[in-house]
């Protein structure tokens, strides 16, 4: 039997994951872990496979080999719905709100698999974090500003009451002040006990709030470690942090 070393039990584990789009081999033998309540960031250049990693975890794209394990349960063959029921949610790249639908409907879709009886409570919880969203609930999501859309996208994901929240470039396209604000919210969600796997181009800021980090390059994990160590890492500085 293995001896526990005091590290949090892994909520999510990817074991030797290989994901393809048709003939294109994207993720190559990816191993990755996120512990209970941990904040992990996933870094990497363009087209390195960060979004594909999140889609593989969520089950939108099936891996050709390897395992996705959620809270000890092998979910590799499970549908997205089953995985969401086990505590996943995503803030997708570019937010992907349902533009012709109202903010409220978008939030309700985030709670698609939740019992109807909890809807009101879930909504109130989200409105508490984003009071501004409450005021906009009748507005069509497509007419919101970029910052508002980001809040709705986060709110929509939180409606699922995730144990692990996947976020794909939450600060993309936001003004600096809103970037700061969205990292504040990430910290707030994290301190509420939710584990996060955050994809970011903005390595400096994300490493400063993360517990651990992984660096992807052309579909392989090339670096991993504690955020405090990664942030000082020579190669990483050159590749992503240096200007």
């Amino acid at each position, binding site marked *: 039997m293995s001896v526990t070393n005091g590290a949090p039990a892994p909520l999510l584990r990817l074991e030797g994951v290989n994901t393809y789009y048709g003939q294109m081999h994207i993720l190559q033998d990816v191993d990755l872990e996120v512990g209970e309540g941990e904040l992990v960031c996933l870094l990497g250049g363009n087209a390195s496979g960060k979004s594909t990693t999140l889609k593989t975890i969520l089950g939108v794209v099936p891996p050709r080999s390897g395992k996705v394990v959620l809270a000890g349960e092998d979910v590799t063959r499970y549908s997205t*719905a089953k995985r969401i029921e086990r505590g996943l949610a995503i803030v997708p790249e570019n937010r992907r709100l349902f533009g012709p639908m109202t903010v409220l*409907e978008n939030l309700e*879709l985030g709670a*698609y698999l939740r019992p109807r009886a909890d809807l009101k409570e879930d909504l109130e919880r989200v409105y508490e974090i984003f009071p501004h969203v409450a005021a906009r609930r009748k507005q069509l999501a497509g007419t919101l500003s970029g910052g508002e859309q980001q809040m709705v996208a986060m709110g929509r994901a939180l409606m699922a009451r995730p144990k692990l929240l996947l976020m794909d470039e939450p600060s993309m396209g936001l003004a600096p002040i809103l970037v700061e604000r969205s990292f504040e919210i990430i910290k707030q969600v994290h301190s509420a006990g939710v584990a996060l796997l955050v994809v970011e181009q903005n390595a400096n800021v994300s490493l400063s709030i993360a517990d651990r980090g992984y660096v992807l390059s052309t579909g392989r994990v090339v670096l991993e470690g504690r955020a405090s160590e990664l942030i000082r890492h020579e190669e990483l500085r050159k590749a992503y942090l240096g200007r």
Partner: protein
Amino acid sequence: MDWDKIVQLLVNGLTLGSVYALVALGFSMVYGILKLLNLAHGDVLMVGAFIGWGVLGWLGGAQDPSVAVWILLTLMVLAAMAGCGFLGVAIERFAYRPLRRAPRIAPLISALGVSFFIQNSVLLLFGANFRSYESFDLVDVEVGIHWGPLNVWILRIVVMASALAMMLGLWILVTRTKLGRAMRATAFDREAAAMMGIDVDRVIVKTFFIGSALAGAAGVLVGLVFGSINHFMGFGYGLKGFTAAVVGGIGSIPGAMFGGILIGLAEAFSVGYIEDVTFGRLGSAFSDLVVFLILIGFMLLRPQGIFGKKDVKKV
């Protein structure tokens, strides 16, 4: 002005229009969710008309029905809706789903194939003869509203009312229910919908079921008020329904209703007046000309239709 004639044409147009609207709704729903023109949709209507005719015969026929007329009508419509709903599900499963990632022309050709397949199957089963619902035996022509120039046979009222009721039901389903929300989300962004945990395949299947069930109901309504049915009838209704969907704005539910009524009225009034207007050079058989001129006009001037958004892609 010949008010009797105008009122009569108005009634004809609204009856026809409510049927076109039902067909257009099915077109629009499927197009909205798969960006696919379901060319077999008119043939589903034809199958519905035959199912209704079969139920009518099975329950004693129009002269001597073995149940009350309203029960008979309800059963005819429900049977056609159920039968066509499952037909639609089968079409999606076997003709469209395998081609979902193929280039767009592939499902279009597959749809044409399904259309021929259904037509020829019915031809094989029932022959090329026209069949009739003989609904004048079922409900006397004199029964209905007689109010000044307004003379409406009760069956026409039933047809319009049930079409309207189904449209309202669909509207509530799409705007107020969880399934409706899932349908709209899937139509807008399939992958994002999947990321919310929506079972996209199931939503597509249900969309086909509902759209095809509406076509099946429309088939029975057509049989009831316009008499004869045959294996080829789906083509015309399909084309008019498609026109109505495009004119209203394909993908839009109010658009399909509005387009249906507009096309129905246009057809009825051109049947009534085309001879006068062209000094006898064109007969009422040319009324379709007007309908398709409207289609071409919209394609050229407002391709997104009345209720459509600008970004609708053309096939």
